[in-house]
């Protein structure tokens, strides 16, 4: 069970990285929405890619050496060492591509370790969701702190972008009907205190997040709204890991239903809560973009809102409506959505251009 949960969580990260690559690609083509392109030339691009390749080869070399000497290291330890080397190298030679890849590697390392700690126990697996979520929030705050320094602005941006992509991606996945099935399984089992490594990790993550958030708030790197959003997410994660097992998440389906089970009262409540949190997060990003005058945040929020409505439409209505009605309505919704998005984006960008610069 734990193994499949790890696989499912790792699967989140692949689309996240792909979407990230697409966003980064378009951002680069535009020369950087905020004037901070991630590569200045094709040589820069190539040099960064070679450094990524070197870091990956370093990890594989460690695995191979370990095998030659009778499995000295676990594969995840090799991953950890390669990610630490990648971060150090990235900062040393100012290669921004290494930063998000190493950070994602560190998160994957923690998920694998936590999975192995939980393996063979009856402890609930909610920590496997809460841990990465808290780490990505921590990256957001660290990114905002780094952005303050002119020397590390691009690095800060990479933390923020990775964090937003990941948090939004995870919420997207668990907000769908398939994701809710996975989500329901997180509640099963005993409290995670039985496994001290997991409990200690989560405690460290929460404390680190709170300390850095307070520091960033004090230095005005984080707005009160952003801090509020982070507190909301931490609260949600704490509820997830502490709430008692949920009865009635799924109930047997009716005689004419497609599925053997369907969402019960608890399932509906959690479905609404997750979708509401996702919607609030996207609106929060939109307004953060407006407040900070960061065009890429506005674009990111707009694209995500578009995907949100599209995915929800297919997720909720695809089994209910006749196919022709389904496609016609989908088309009309998309055209309407595209038009309103273009209009809204223009309005926001115009307002951003007209608004006085924040101190």
């Amino acid at each position, binding site marked *: 069970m734990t193994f499949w949960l790890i696989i499912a969580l790792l699967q989140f990260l692949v689309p996240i990285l792909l979407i990230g690559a697409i966003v980064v690609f378009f951002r680069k083509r535009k020369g950087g929405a905020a004037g901070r392109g991630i590569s*200045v*030339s*094709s*040589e*820069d691009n*190539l*040099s*960064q*890619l*070679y*450094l990524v*390749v*070197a870091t*990956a*080869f*370093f990890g*594989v*070399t460690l*695995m*191979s*050496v370990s*095998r*030659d000497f009778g499995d000295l290291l676990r*594969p995840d330890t090799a991953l950890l060492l390669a990610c630490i080397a990648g971060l150090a190298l990235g900062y040393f*030679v*100012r*290669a921004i591509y290494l930063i998000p890849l190493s950070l994602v590697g560190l998160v994957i390392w923690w998920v694998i370790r936590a999975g192995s700690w939980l393996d063979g126990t009856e402890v609930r697996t909610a920590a496997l969701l809460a841990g990465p979520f808290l780490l990505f929030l921590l990256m957001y705050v660290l990114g905002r702190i780094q952005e303050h320094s*002119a*020397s*590390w*602005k*691009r690095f800060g941006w990479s933390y923020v972008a990775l964090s937003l992509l990941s948090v939004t991606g995870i919420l997207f996945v668990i907000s769908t009907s398939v994701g809710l099935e996975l989500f329901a399984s997180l509640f099963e089992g005993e409290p995670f205190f039985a496994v001290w490594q997991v409990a200690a990790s989560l405690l460290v993550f929460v404390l680190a997040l709170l300390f850095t958030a307070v520091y960033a708030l004090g230095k005005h790197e984080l707005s009160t709204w952003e801090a509020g959003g982070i507190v909301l997410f931490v609260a949600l994660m704490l509820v997830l890991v502490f709430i008692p097992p949920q009865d009635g998440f799924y109930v047997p389906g009716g005689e004419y239903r497609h599925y053997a089970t369907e969402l019960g009262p608890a399932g509906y409540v959690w479905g609404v809560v997750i979708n509401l949190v996702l919607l609030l997060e996207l609106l929060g990003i939109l307004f953060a973009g407006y407040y900070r005058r960061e065009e890429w945040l506005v674009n990111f929020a707009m694209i995500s809102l578009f995907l949100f409505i599209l995915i929800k439409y297919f997720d909720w209505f695809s089994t209910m409506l006749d196919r022709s009605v389904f496609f016609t309505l989908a088309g009309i919704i998309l055209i309407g959505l595209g038009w309103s998005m273009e209009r809204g984006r223009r309005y926001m960008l115009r307002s951003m251009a007209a608004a006085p610069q924040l101190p």
Partner: protein
Amino acid sequence: MPPEQLVPFVRTALTEGRSREDIYRDLLAQSHGLADIQAAVAAVDGESHKEDTQKRVVRIILVVGAMLVAAGVFSFIASNWQGMPREARVTVIVGFMLIMNVAGWFLREQYGYEKTGEAFLLLGSLIYGGGIFLVGQMYNIRTNWPDGFILWMLGVIPMALAVNSRYLLALGLPIAAFAMVGHPIGLYGGTAGYSGYLFTSTLLLAAATLSALAAGYVIRRKVIAENPGTLS
């Protein structure tokens, strides 16, 4: 002066490496209207965009051509494989590789055919890579299959740096990707014919790490020197 007459001035100034701010300042000082200057700059931008597109098309055609020739060479060798003695096979492979690299260098450096020369150099590297696998198979060399890709990459990187070719550097990346993915799958997935205890693989992986690191670092130093203060 109407914008048509400003266009040659703007074109020359941009070719000389002058900044747009300088050009605007000069022309405004000569009492030209802002709209005329903008129209002239836009016209030159349009020309360079067209030129870029043409260059890109030529580059794509040449790269596709190089790949097709490489495929043709390997088909020729494969179809006559049984009838050729070992020495002849190695001679054909090494000969083709040398001819392409030498021709590429001459075309690029001596005759100024930059893109065609690059395409020949690319072809030389493709033949080199194919040759590694053919020689490995011919002499039954005991290696793991991703090792061939590492050897290929180890040859392509110095060549790319020596001839300062972006094509070859770009070629090194997908080659590296095969080795990077192939080795862990072999080590932990148990691919048929893969030996996890072959020390040659470990040595090659270490060489690949150092080689990629050196390539990345060398190019990075150049980029930092060319763009001071922009990589913060």
